[in-house]
């Protein structure tokens, strides 16, 4: 019964993710693309929740949907996209690009098919050891084992802040 509900939820979220993704890359209007991307990101958040990654579920909704997509929508408003919506949407090398993607897809599909038997270990779904919530486990690991990468990430964010401020200056 529980596995049935899990399976149904997985397929619902997978449909959201893939449908939103396809709409994102095919829509003419950039605002419609952004809305489809939000649907797709919410589907990904649901998949995180299905796999007991509660902290990342919250991060995905607050940071991606609340932060990055807001940034995208602001830029779409700042940059005049009305003219771009009336022009050709796909570039000239789209046929070559599709062929390249098909080749990559064939490669990935082949590897997945060959490695299929190696993935059956996932069927024992128990999650993390009891007594330790997901957020606590993440924090324990992040602030002990991964302290240096964490600090480097903060420097990266500082660089990004400075960079975007410089880029948005009047004369550059």
């Amino acid at each position, binding site marked *: 019964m529980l596995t049935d509900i899990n399976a149904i939820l997985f397929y619902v979220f997978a449909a959201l993710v893939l449908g939103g993704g396809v709409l994102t890359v095919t829509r003419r209007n950039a605002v419609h693309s952004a809305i489809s991307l939000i649907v797709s990101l919410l589907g990904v958040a649901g*998949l995180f929740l299905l796999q007991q990654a509660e902290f*990342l579920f919250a991060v995905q909704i607050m940071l991606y949907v609340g932060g*990055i997509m807001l940034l995208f929508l602001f830029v779409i408003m700042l*940059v005049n*996209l009305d003219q*771009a919506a009336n022009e050709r949407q796909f570039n000239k090398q789209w046929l070559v*690009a599709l062929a390249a993607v098909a080749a990559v897809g064939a490669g990935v599909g082949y590897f997945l098919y060959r490695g299929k038997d190696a993935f059956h270990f996932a069927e024992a779904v128990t*999650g993390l050891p009891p007594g330790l919530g997901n957020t606590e486990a993440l924090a324990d690991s992040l602030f002990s084992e991964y302290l240096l990468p964490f600090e480097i990430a903060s420097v990266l964010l500082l660089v990004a802040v400075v960079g975007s401020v410089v880029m948005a200056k009047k004369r550059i």
Partner: protein
Amino acid sequence: MHPITTFHYLVLSAALLLIGTVGVLTRRNVVIILMSIELILNAVNINLIAFSHALHNVNGQIFAIFVITDAVAEAAVGLGILIALFRNKETVQADEMDILKW
């Protein structure tokens, strides 16, 4: 109904990766190219979380946090560059930004 295994998540992640790649390679609008990059990064995150869940190991989720951090930095800088480009060239089409071509 078959139980959902890691394999299902890997197939979904591969499909999302391919959709994002098509978007990056074929669209002309830079805003939508940046959105496609977000799709690719989310495909990576699905993969990481699937393996983190399967192996009962929290390292995959830590890595996903760093991927999200990178995505934020990339979106902020990329959109800043886009605004600067639009001020100077009055276009958002990727194939019209060809000053370096000859």
